[in-house]
């Protein structure tokens, strides 16, 4: 009797903690500047305005930042998934001499073992020499590289849990390795693939450091950089920041909802033998 009550209470607190900042951001984006700083704060009843949205997306270049973010995040996620999944499959299924497959996996992971900022300056110099500064391509390359270890390790786990029999049966039935991968293996790890994709997308979408280092022009800037730019020497544009933030949530939310069914199964894939 008490247990479900406690459970729902705990859940309610968690939901509240997660939602209040988002709610606050949404209200700020709709408030006039006066209402934004009202003391005590106005939680519900204020006269809404869309001036910050028009300011951000019509007067400033946030529309462009949004497009850049979307392109960079989706393309880099796609690249990381394709390369990482193939690598993970190889590492999960083929034994290399001298235990190289395990060493290779660990080496791939080691690229995430140091703080990202360590690579910021070298990457900046490399991109400068390649004349890729202020391009979307530079961000796509860096994000792909950054997400690869994650994809490899996640997918390697999913592949390892899949019984080998299925691929072997496919081979005996006359299919090629790659055919078995696409027709048998990938459909079965689709939930894992979806979960991995969501994480990659979130990381790329929200990435700040490399975007800051590698891009300075409106044409190549991503949303997080644009938002940070609203903290100026003279004022902090809370309205614009909140309006942009509200819009920035949407794509990830939509994608997560679209793959939600897979997401839950993916995160617990292998926990229960199906």
């Amino acid at each position, binding site marked *: 009797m008490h247990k479900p009550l406690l459970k729902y209470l705990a859940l309610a607190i968690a939901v509240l903690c997660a939602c209040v900042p988002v709610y606050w951001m949404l209200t700020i984006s709709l408030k006039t500047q006066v209402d934004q700083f009202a003391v005590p704060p106005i939680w519900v009843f204020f006269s809404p305005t869309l001036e910050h949205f028009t300011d951000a997306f019509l007067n400033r270049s946030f529309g462009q930042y949004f497009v850049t973010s979307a392109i960079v995040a989706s393309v880099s996620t796609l690249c990381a998934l394709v390369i990482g999944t193939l690598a993970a499959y190889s590492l999960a299924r083929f034994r290399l001499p001298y235990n190289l497959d395990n060493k290779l996996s660990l080496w791939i992971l080691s690229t995430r073992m140091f703080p990202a900022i360590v690579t910021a300056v070298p990457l900046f110099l490399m991109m400068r020499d390649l004349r890729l500064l202020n391009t979307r391509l530079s961000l796509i390359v860096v994000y792909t590289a950054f997400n690869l270890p994650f994809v490899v390790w996640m997918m390697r786990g999913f592949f390892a849990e899949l*019984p080998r*029999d*299925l691929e*072997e*049966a*496919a*081979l*005996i*039935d*006359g*299919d*090629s390795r790659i*055919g078995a991968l696409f*027709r*048998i293996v990938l*459909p*079965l790890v689709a939930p894992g693939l979806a979960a991995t994709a969501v994480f990659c997308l979130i990381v790329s979408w929200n990435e700040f450091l490399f975007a800051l280092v590698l891009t300075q022009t409106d044409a190549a800037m991503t949303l997080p950089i644009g938002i940070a730019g609203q903290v100026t020497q003279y004022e902090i544009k809370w309205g614009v920041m909140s309006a942009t933030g509200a819009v920035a949530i949407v794509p990830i939310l939509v994608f997560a909802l679209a793959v939600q069914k897979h997401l839950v199964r993916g995160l617990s894939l292998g926990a229960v033998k*199906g």
Partner: protein
Amino acid sequence: MPIVFKNISKQFGNTSVVYDLSLTINDGEFVVLLGPSGCGKTTTLRMLAGLESVSSGDILINDERVNDIPTQHRDLAMVFQSYALYPHMTIAENIAYPLRVRKVDSRLREEKVKRVATLLEIESLLDRKPKQLSGGERQRVALARAIIREPRAYLMDEPLSNLDARLRVQMRGELKRLQHQLRTTTIYVTHDQAEAMTLAHRVAVMRKGKLQQFDTPMNIYDRPANRFVAEFVGSPSMNFIDGELSHGKLINQDLSIELNNSPVGPMTGSKLTLGIRPEHIQVRRTAEVGALPARVYVTELMGNETFVFLMVGENKLVARAPADFRADEEEPVWVSLDSTKLHFFDSEGTRVN
């Protein structure tokens, strides 16, 4: 198609799993690889399928060396112990898969699926997913997927071991009929001697990666090549009495058995093991000339017969008796061995008669 294993060996690292195996399997033959777990029988099958590389030796299918031919081009069909049905496909899609990857046109595919499904009585399951099927039904689907095309041989890796006892016996019979109908070379791996005896034209008994005997079920049973085969095949197992050969008699501390007609190679004084199957021991409750005195250890009534476990001195024996045989524990009885059915093994365990 005929299949030949020529001096096949397989090592995993430093462990030798299959050792110098040579087998010649005739076209259309049903061969069972029989042995306890870890004897290398499954590895042998997997090498034939190309799922495992061969360390040394050659495998020939229809006189063609296939060592370096990848699995998908060997044109074999296999039934896995786990059935390995594709969980995301319907039963019809599962069965049609070998045709789909061969780009057979979809109408012909459907037609063949229907025909195979009818043969195996699974027409009503075609739209379901493997998860919704019982073990026996999955087994049939796995079989259907194997027989939908005409492969050069069927490989079966303990296909019945996940079924319950009743279903296993039923499927065993169906498998046999199916093989006789299709007349396709079949290699079947099992640790169940009943499956080996009932299904095989010839049985290859393996132990620790080595072939022990390759012969018809009857010969395996009646003339086991060594003590291991003798012990492994038959239930209850063959009885063994260790002793020494002395002037036409087998002697140990408890007994002395006259070996009147049994031809024995070894010389007087050498160690010898006598083997006799339970059905060749007769148990009587009254003394008789030439019978050995024994005590009843325990009896097990099986319904149609009784297993009588006996102690002849320190030697444990088991005999088959009629169902109505009754004896109390520790009761004295007399046993006589059928002298024409004796097996003799030397100290290495090799058959010597």
